């Protein structure tokens, strides 16, 4: 399949999934559109032989993550520890109150710093193990654990308990089909 056909197939069959992934990371519709477009350009700017649609989708997903993280690093804002409640005028001092107030997953993810958000999406949405998350993000396992620890505290305050996941080398949901 030529590159031109592969792009059309990918756009038709997986465009929305790619957008959804980018939207989870960015929390912003326009930023997600830009992210998907840039990832596709990077993928198809290089001629690749023998690429199937599944190969291309996997590559574009990795490019989405890479561009998202690189953009976050370029920004000058401090993102090591961030707290965003987003939708409420009153502070949600009681996590149960926060959940009861209807914060959804996207708002909860928006409360995370970019690196934390990427780690959280890879671990709890894509069900990757900690070593797999570390490999995707180009980080040491320990650094990923720190991001997940911080992210987990923030997410649990807004969404309730997360899976124990003590065994960091196993998927959270064995046997689950991954997107």
């Amino acid at each position, binding site marked *: 399949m030529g590159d031109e056909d592969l792009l059309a197939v990918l756009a038709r069959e997986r465009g929305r999934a790619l957008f959804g992934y980018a*939207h989870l990371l960015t929390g912003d519709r326009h930023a997600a559109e830009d992210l998907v477009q840039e990832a*596709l*350009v990077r993928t198809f700017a290089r001629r690749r032989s023998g690429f199937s649609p599944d190969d291309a989708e996997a590559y574009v997903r990795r490019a989405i993550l890479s561009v998202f993280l690189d953009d976050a690093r370029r920004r000058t804002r401090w993102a090591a*520890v961030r707290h965003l409640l987003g939708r409420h005028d009153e502070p949600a001092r009681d996590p149960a109150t926060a959940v009861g107030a209807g914060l959804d997953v996207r708002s909860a993810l*928006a409360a995370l710093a970019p690196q934390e958000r990427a780690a959280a999406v890879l671990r709890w949405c*894509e069900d990757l193990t900690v070593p797999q998350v570390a490999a995707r993000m180009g980080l*040491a396992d320990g650094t990923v654990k720190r991001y997940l620890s911080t992210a987990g505290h923030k997410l649990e305050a807004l969404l309730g308990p997360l899976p124990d996941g003590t065994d960091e080398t196993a998927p959270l949901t064995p046997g689950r089909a991954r997107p």
Partner: protein
Amino acid sequence: MTEHENRNPLADALPHAERSPEALAYEVPVELVRTRARRRRRARTAGAAGAVALVVGGVALAVPPLLRGEGTTPAPVAAHASVAAHAPAECRRTLAGLRAGDGIRPGSGNAATDDGDFWRVTTSLEADAVLRPSGAWQGLVRVDVDAPTASLVSAPKGWTIAGTLVLVQDAAVVAVLDGWQDMSLQQATQVAVDVQPQPFPLDTEIDSTFVSCATGEPAELAPGDYELVATRTLGWSQGDSTTEWVARATSEPLAVTVADDDAPPAPTGPATCGASDDELRDLADPRTNPAPSRLSAPGAPTTARAGERLVVQVMLTNDGPERLDATASTPTLVVVQDGRVVGGLDAVESVGHVVSLDPGGSLWLEAGARLLGCSADGSAGPALDPGEYEVWAVTDVIPDRAGGGPDPASAWDVAGGPWRVVVR
């Protein structure tokens, strides 16, 4: 496993995101992606023998102001001892050799007789470009052309023709960016270009890999300090299309560091282990951080026990001229020693505090952290050694919109400190 233990509120986040209203309304702009991908592919092969790179949106390199030069083919220099036979030609040059070909000339279609000394070409490399041990490089290069001493009827518009990006170490070129090739000024004046000129500055985002001079293969960069140097050959026209110029310019070296692949990533942000406290100072200084809020800690503890929790009552003050309605996060405590972040940084609860302050008004926020140090893998380290430290508090403030509700896009960070603490 109980239902509680198995519950993952994020398990269906991706499928839900794929079926969200935004996703259902989304369509990939296929033709736009195709066009951009083709342009980027051409940019990668810019300067290949006989070809002209038609890059709309140039690559910016830091260059000194140019004087009109002869623009001859860069003088070859003695070959570097470790250059592979099939390595790029730039591997056999020194920086002086690269710069030797810089200059400005009238273009091939130029109807003017002016020597062009009034032109100034300036370029810049993005300072935080990412260089990985694998040789992959992502960065932004910008080129700009103006005439500060001349009165121009119209602004120049230009195009990039060719260029190269090299990695230098100990004054020798050790790697060259893949897919890029230098072009002399002389060649550039003889090349016919079919391109739509674009207003300056011209930006090019580059995502490529370096080729090692020693092996001629994709570079595996050893950890250490390097310098990035870029050379660009460009053209521009002014007003009517018969007035054209070409220039070749080599940037000033930009220092870059390749980190150890096994080492933790370079610190980012002021609340990161190993980071300098410079950013904390900037966030705490109203001269460098004009945001209308300050953090202070009158009565902050001056002694503490290692490993135990330090609690600091932090005061957030509205020092702006208008009422401040916002949400402020629980501050994070950062422990610094000899100008570097060495500990603190406990994860804090995701709690926002309502801020509603008249000018000059204040509210108290409690910040706390265990006095633990950093560790190599980023996890909580051992108790801090006894000694003298400086403690800072950092938080972010999210102002409310005029109609109510937080406006995260307008948020700012603020720091307070340092407060001297003796750990026993």
